[in-house]
Structures are given as structure tokens and as C-alpha cells.
């Protein structure tokens, strides 16, 4: 038996174990679920050790003698004190350093997530799509303005905002169904195509 056939059979077995939950909860499903969690963590730890700890810390310090890296390594290792009740406060120091990254990210995130989006909502209403986006933006924003009662013409306009959101939820639901079916298709393609070789 080739390695590919063997690995396909293992994957097929665990796929069926997970699918067995559709009938009812059972030990095979639980075994597969817990193996997934365990293997994911184990893989992450080993891979991070090989690809991060060794080339970014061990080799620079012990082979290239970049001893300055000992300081950030020590600060980083303070994260491990999260596991201690009495000394968990020490883990706040590396968090404080990582806040630099957050600081650097805020202006650019504001630009990408807010300013550019606002600019795009302020373009001339030359097409029907732009008009619909404009009305939708205003109506939905007003729907969430609760300092004025949603009555009269104002109430009717905010109802338009509600309808916009309903259409959005419907689209999201449709896309979610599509995504879930796609995942099932992928697994069945694997079982029928790769394992049973019935798709060509």
C-alpha cells in the first residue's frame, strides 16, 4: 500500500468519524474531535519551535553570538508567568511592548477602515448603485440613532434602513449556506474522488 493510499484511508476514516455525529454523538466522533485539537496544538508547537525559536533566537544567540537578543527573549519569556497566580502581573510587560504594534496599526487601520470608506460614500451620485449605497448608508445610520423616536416620516425612512439590513442578512445567509455546502462538497469530493477514485 502506497503512502498516499494509506494517508487517504486515514483521512477517510476520520472524515466518517466526524460525519457520524449527524446520526448521533458517539465515541468515534469524540475521538476524532479530540485528536484534531491535540494534533493541531502539537503541530503548532513543533512547527513554531523549528521555524521561530531555532532560526530567530537559538541560532542568532548561540551561533552568531548576537547576545543583545537575550533581552527581548527574557522580556518575551515573562508571558509564561500567566500560569502563575502570584506572578501573572509580570506578563503585562511584554504586553506593554506589543502595544507599540497596536499604536503603529491604529492610524493605518483608521485610514483603511474608516477614511477610505467615508470617501467612497461621498462620491457624486452618478449611477443607480451609488444612489442606493448613499440611501442605504444614511438610512442604516439613522436606524441606530435612538435619541429621536422612530415615528412619522423619520420612522418610515429608518424602516428603509431596517430593510437594507434585512437584505444584507439574507445575502449573508445565502453566502453562509453556499460556504457550508462547499465544505461538504469538498469532503465528498475527497471520499468519492481521491479515496474511491470514482470522479475523473
Amino acid at each position, binding site marked *: 500500500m502506497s503512502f498516499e493510499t494509506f494517508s487517504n484511508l486515514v483521512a477517510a476514516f476520520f472524515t466518517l468519524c466526524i460525519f457520524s455525529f*449527524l*446520526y448521533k454523538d458517539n465515541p468515534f466522533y469524540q475521538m476524532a474531535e479530540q485528536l484534531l485539537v491535540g494534533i*493541531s496544538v502539537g*503541530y*503548532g508547537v513543533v*512547527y*513554531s519551535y523549528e*521555524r*521561530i525559536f531555532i*532560526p*530567530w533566537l537559538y541560532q542568532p544567540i548561540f551561533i552568531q553570538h548576537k547576545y543583545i537578543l537575550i533581552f527581548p527573549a527574557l522580556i518575551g519569556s515573562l508571558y509564561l508567568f500567566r500560569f502563575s497566580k502570584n506572578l501573572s502581573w509580570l506578563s503585562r510587560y511584554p504586553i506593554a511592548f506589543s502595544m507599540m*504594534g497596536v499604536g*503603529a*496599526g491604529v492610524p*493605518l*487601520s483608521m*485610514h*483603511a*477602515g474608516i477614511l*477610505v*470608506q467615508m*470617501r*467612497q460614500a461621498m462620491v457624486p451620485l452618478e449611477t443607480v448603485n451609488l444612489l442606493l*449605497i448613499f440611501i442605504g448608508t444614511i438610512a442604516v445610520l439613522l436606524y441606530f440613532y435612538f435619541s429621536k423616536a422612530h415615528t412619522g416620516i423619520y420612522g418610515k425612512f429608518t424602516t428603509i434602513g431596517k430593510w437594507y439590513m434585512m437584505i*444584507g442578512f439574507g*445575502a*449573508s445567509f445565502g*453566502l*453562509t*449556506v*453556499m*460556504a*457550508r*455546502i*462547499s*465544505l*461538504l*462538497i*469538498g*469532503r*465528498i*469530493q475527497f471520499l*468519492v*474522488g481521491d479515496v474511491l477514485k*470514482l*470522479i*475523473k
Partner: protein
Amino acid sequence: MNFFEKLQALDRRYIYIVVALAIIIPLMVQYNSDVVTTPPTENLYQLIDSYAGRSDRAILISFYHDAATMPELYPMEIAILRHCFERKVKVFTMTFYAAGAPIIDFAINTVKEEYPDIQSGVDYCNFGYKIMPMITALGMGDNIATAIDTDAEGRKLANLPIMKDIVNYNEMNLIIETSGSSAGGTWITYARSKFGANVAVGVTAVMAADMYPYLQSGQLIGMLTGLKGAAEYEKLVDVFAAYRDENFPQGRPFSNEILRDPSINKLINITTQTQAVFSPQEYQAFLSKYPEQAVSLDNLKEDKDGQVVFDVTKISAEQQQELGYNAWTALNKKTYNILYKFKTARIGMNAQSIAHIMIFVFILIGNIGYFVTRKKDKKV
């Protein structure tokens, strides 16, 4: 208990069986169907295609997902890599997600099998698993070779031939992130906002609604949405990048007119194609390319309605050897048969279509049942 009440009390496991059958049957009984391409997919395709054959342009594919979302994202990655290999576009790959690293190797090796001339470090380069997305994305804006340092095989990036003429985002001007969660977030925020790099995403369908505002505001130049997006891209690659004739020996450029032309139907059949059909002129041209195989080819051909036809399933292994690798590959190519790995998404979309019709019927029956039952309850 009437029909609708019985339906509403139906054990959900029967519904699971119906869903499974609605997917298994169309997967096994294949049929040809068209996938209509959409502007977000076409825009991404055209931008990648504009880099064809250029040493000073490259793309980066960021695999930000694990095996759980592979059914939707993996066909996209395969299709984009195939496009790059067909059209000689320099391509880099990387991941910020440890579980994404083996998927990159799997994808590259799967596509590379069909392109023996493509070389690591020359035509493509896998940066592998990298940490600290923000720092990496910002660093690449200054100098990619400095920010990445070594590739997944441990080679110094600055020494690789692929890095010739590639310095930063001015050259590696397109980043495509495939992800099942926050696709493109890092690249839109850092590479796009600060350096003006083009960003595109391939997302699972469930994430698409979140990405449309970025597409509409021009921060994303293109987007592949779930299995449908992958199927669209597969089609574009078959119609343009993988197309070969005397005028276009390296694939042809994108054109909306060609997409509307019925002649492309023979290029996008997803059922198994076994017959290579030549007009007499095409056959003469083919013979002139392979004059030493002329006798063998003449023995194998059949004449049907004035056309020269070869059924490749009737050509034995010995006869294939006699024809030689080049002639046999060229003959096979003329069948326009698409390898399974390059049509996975389109086969999946056939099943998707049937499943959607089935779900639509379920929703319809469920709603009718609900209103009928409510009306009955009111009467009581």
C-alpha cells in the same frame, strides 16, 4: 396529521441523506455547465495576466488558512498558480499561519507536476511560514529580501535568480490573500495604505459579505468568492492562459468578446474528453511539426465527416512511446481534456447548483407548511 405536519416532524437525519445524495449524484454523474465570470474575478485575472513574461513584476499569494477551509480556497490557489506558471508570471507564496505551510507545498507540487520547466527560486519562491504580519508587511515595503531574509528551503533570498529586478511592492505589486477569516486585513492596512500595493482576496463565501465594502471602495482590486470564485478563475485560465495556437504560443490575453464567443465551449468542458479533432489543414500543420511520427499518426487517425479524429483512449502505451513525449502531449492537448485537479471547483459547482435548488425547495415547502399550519391553528 396532514402532509405538512408530517414534514415538519420529519427526522432531520432524512434531510441529511437527501443533502448527501444531492451532492454525491452530480459529482459522480458529471455534466458540462457554464460558469459566468464576474468583474471582481476578471479584474484579478487581468492584473496578474498583465505581469506575464515581465522580470520586474511579481505577485505574492498569502495562504492564511488551514485544512478546514481548503475545499473553497485550495482550488483558487491551484488556479492562480496555474495561471502564473502558464503565463510565466513570477510568484511568491507565504503564510502567517503555521498550518498553512504544508498547504503551500501541496499546492505548488500539485500544479508543478504539469510544468516540468518551472523551477523553484527562478519562476516561483516559497517564503514559507513567517511571523509578525505587521512588521513583515511593512518591511517588505522597503526591501523584500531584507524583510524575509530566507525562503522556506533556507536559501538566502537576495541570492535567488527570481529576486532579480524585484525589490519591494513597486515590483511585487499584487498581494492575494486566501483566507477563511480576516482576509487581506494586514495587507490592506499596511501594504495598501502605506505603500499603495494592489491587494486582492480569495475568501470563503461566508466571509464575502464582509469584504464587499473594501471591494466597492477600491481597496481590493479583485475578489474570488468561495467555490464560485474558484470556478470562475479556473474557466478564465482554460480559456486564456492555457490556450495555445500558432498566434498565441504562450496563451492569449483576456478579452470579453472571446468570453462571449460560443467557440470557447470546447475549452471548458468538464466531462472527460477523449477525441482530438483536426481539420485537414490543422492536421497537415500538426504533421509538419512532428514529421518523424507521420506514419504512426496516419495509422492511428480516423476520418469522420471530413475531419481527422484521434481517440486517445484507443492509443496503447507502446503506441504512445512510439509517438514520443512531445507529439503524444500535443495530441492529448488537442482533446481539450481538463485534468481533474484543474476543474475541481467547477465539478463542485455542479453539485452546488443542485444543492441550492434542493435548499430552495426545502425553504419553500417549510414556509408553505408553516403558513398552512398557522392557518389551521387559528381556525381551531
